[in-house]
């Protein structure tokens, strides 16, 4: 009888143990983190609601401020997506719309339907009373297990504008990187598949010692933890390299949750790296791909279909024409050559034709110091990739009269050869009937003006006519000068006439002088399509830079510029811009 009693007691205790586990796990808490508004607005969120008896000035200030707050009458829409296989697209799971009823804070449940052993993506949009999306942000690649509790942050940025990434609205200092408050250069950044951001290397300037040293530091930004973590150093100090992300698939066919970062070439100091490394964020380790190439700086990387293409690069004596592909297994191999070796050029994705990947290569120089421009008929090339082979062909662009042939330039020596180097480019695509299928936007850089290098005063847009039979370009004047810019697309709304890209302007001087102390300027470039009347062109294009809520599009609390700060965009169409010390987020207009 005693044994029976004790057995019952044992069952009872076991029940308690099990119930403890059940009750305290599988919970998922999402903390919405808000950005700091421009410092010239002193109104608090609690008083940011516009009232009828406000003065016009107060109304305007409150409207600005309200973009950075979650206020009474706003709606928070939480969209949940999941996938069992990280290599597959996420599918929609559920949506929760939360009505905000005060100006202070709130907490509400969302449907408890997360399934274990699946990857989740959460996306939040905050709309105001007029249903305009003002704040948005997301987190992805979160593997849900029922036995754990989750407490994550979801940082919201102002849609279509930049904000400094901060721990909270009262902590304006934000997440800090290893890049000091002075003119540094040469760092590269890549958004991982799980939403974290890897950045590494660069030429770091110390304005106290007036000294420059090349870094091997690498860090990871995790917005779900609002943290910056130092990871394993690069194999050696490196700057002016290229970086991209492959959707790594191991020999066991398992797809990496993070992808692997391809770190290619770069300057080591007095010499150039001839290595291509893969960084594995899961193992925090670097693997030499073993590929043998010439050392170089300023190669360009482009990610297409989960593979990385590395194009060109220069050393002191060589302008290299290699087209290198790093496939999903991490194998790096040369697949072709450009017609002209180059560096400080741009490479942009073009729509594939017959399944063949295509890229547009524009401009650049033959020397790593940014001299000896590539002009004439070799200014632009189109790379076509067919499996593991690539060919590159020069392309004539109508309107660049002196670009047709070298002979034509010789015949007209007074003509200024069309030249552009150190610019940044990206491809913008429109939904059907809303704009051209694509344009290549090229911003900033410098050009050759009668033997003198000057910062480009124009923004260029390259595209084909409707039937694709010829290339044209369009130049628009810019109010800003960006000698070493970075450019990356952000998401636009579906069926929008406009497409957007984020421009991290960098220095306005051709010389990458670390003592340049300009402020950090960030621009959202808008390319707007409108029905056109020109024969062969269904759409006219207008390019402009949107005005930021920050005065003059700069962070007044960061008065030293990152000379060529990187920008990277994650899978959710959010861009991250690196300035000196701080990181900035630009939310897309939709997921």
């Amino acid at each position, binding site marked *: 009888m005693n044994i029976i009693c*004790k057995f019952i*007691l044992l069952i009872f205790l076991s029940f308690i143990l099990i119930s403890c586990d059940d009750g305290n796990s599988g919970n998922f*808490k999402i*903390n*919405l983190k808000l950005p700091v508004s421009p410092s010239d607005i002193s109104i608090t969120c609690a008083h940011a609601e516009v009232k009828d008896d406000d003065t016009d000035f107060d109304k305007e200030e409150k409207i600005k401020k309200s973009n950075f707050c979650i206020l009474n009458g706003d709606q928070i829409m939480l969209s949940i997506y999941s996938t069992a296989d990280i290599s597959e697209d996420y599918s929609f799971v559920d949506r929760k719309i939360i009505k905000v009823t005060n100006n202070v804070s709130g907490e509400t449940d969302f449907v408890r339907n997360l399934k274990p052993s699946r990857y989740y993506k959460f996306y939040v949009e905050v709309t105001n009373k007029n249903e305009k999306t003002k704040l948005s942000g997301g987190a992805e690649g979160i593997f849900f297990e029922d036995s754990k509790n989750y407490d994550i942050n979801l940082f919201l940025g102002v849609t279509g504008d930049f904000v400094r990434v901060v721990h909270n*609205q009262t902590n304006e200092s934000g997440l800090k990187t290893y890049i000091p408050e002075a003119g540094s250069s040469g760092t590269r950044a890549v958004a991982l598949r799980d939403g974290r951001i890897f950045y590494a290397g660069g030429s770091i300037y110390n304005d106290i010692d007036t000294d420059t040293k090349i870094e091997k530091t690498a860090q990871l930004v995790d917005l779900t933890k609002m943290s910056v973590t130092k990871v394993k150093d690069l194999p050696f100090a490196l700057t002016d390299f290229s970086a991209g992300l492959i959707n790594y698939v191991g020999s066991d066919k398992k797809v990496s949750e993070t992808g692997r970062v391809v770190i290619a070439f770069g300057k080591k100091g007095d010499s150039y790296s001839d290595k291509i490394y893969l960084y594995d964020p899961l193992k925090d380790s670097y693997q030499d791909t073993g590929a043998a190439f010439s050392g170089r700086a300023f190669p360009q990387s482009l990610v297409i279909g989960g593979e990385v293409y590395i194009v060109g690069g220069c050393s002191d004596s060589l302008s290299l024409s290699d087209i290198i592909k790093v496939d999903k297994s991490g194998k790096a191999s040369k697949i072709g050559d450009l017609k002209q070796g180059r560096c400080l050029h741009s490479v942009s994705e073009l729509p594939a034709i017959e399944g063949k990947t295509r890229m547009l290569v524009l401009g650049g120089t033959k020397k790593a110091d940014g001299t000896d421009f590539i002009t004439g008929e070799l200014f632009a090339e189109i790379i076509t990739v067919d499996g593991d082979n690539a060919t590159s062909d020069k392309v004539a662009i109508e309107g660049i009269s002196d670009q047709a042939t070298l002979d034509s330039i010789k015949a007209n020596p007074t003509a200024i050869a069309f030249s552009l180097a150190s610019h940044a480019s990206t491809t913008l695509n429109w939904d059907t009937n809303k704009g051209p299928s694509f344009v290549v936007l090229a911003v900033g850089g410098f050009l050759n003006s009668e033997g003198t290098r000057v910062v480009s005063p124009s923004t260029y847009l390259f595209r084909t006519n409707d039937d694709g039979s010829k290339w044209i370009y369009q130049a628009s004047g810019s109010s800003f000068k960006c000698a070493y810019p970075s450019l990356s697309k952000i998401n636009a709304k579906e069926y929008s006439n406009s497409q957007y890209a984020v421009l991290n302007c960098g220095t306005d001087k051709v010389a990458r002088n670390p003592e340049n102390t300009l402020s950090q300027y960030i621009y959202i470039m808008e390319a707007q399509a409108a029905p056109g009347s020109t024969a062969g062109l269904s759409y006219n294009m207008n390019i402009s830079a949107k005005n930021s809520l920050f005065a003059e599009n700069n962070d007044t609390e960061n008065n030293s510029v990152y000379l060529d700060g990187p920008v990277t965009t994650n899978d959710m169409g959010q861009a991250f811009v690196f300035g000196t010390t701080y990181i900035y987020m630009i939310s897309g207009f939709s997921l």
Partner: protein
Amino acid sequence: MNSKIGKKMKNVTKLMIVVFLLSLFQGAYAEEKKAGGSTGAGVNLKVGQNFYFEGNVVEKEDDQKEASMAEIKKTPFYQTTWFITTVSLVALAGISTGVYFLTANPAPSGNVVSWSNSAK
């Protein structure tokens, strides 16, 4: 925080289970024992124990006294196995429930979205 409390609760419960398992090797307080003499089954309380009691005393021989006492002395209800087991179960259930509610999360928090506008 939740996981810390859950871990603490687990440890407390595990400790209770260990104590319980140890108790399997110990006799219950009022475990029945075979009588010391040959008088058969029954509680064989020895002289001098607190529970010794005799009523309607009839003089007997000394060697008959223990057997007589065993016969006269019925085990009190509070020393029975059933009573102690029941009380123990109730007490343990009470303690366990108390520990559970003191250390566990106030309630399963479920899936929650929270936000706060901090004053600037």
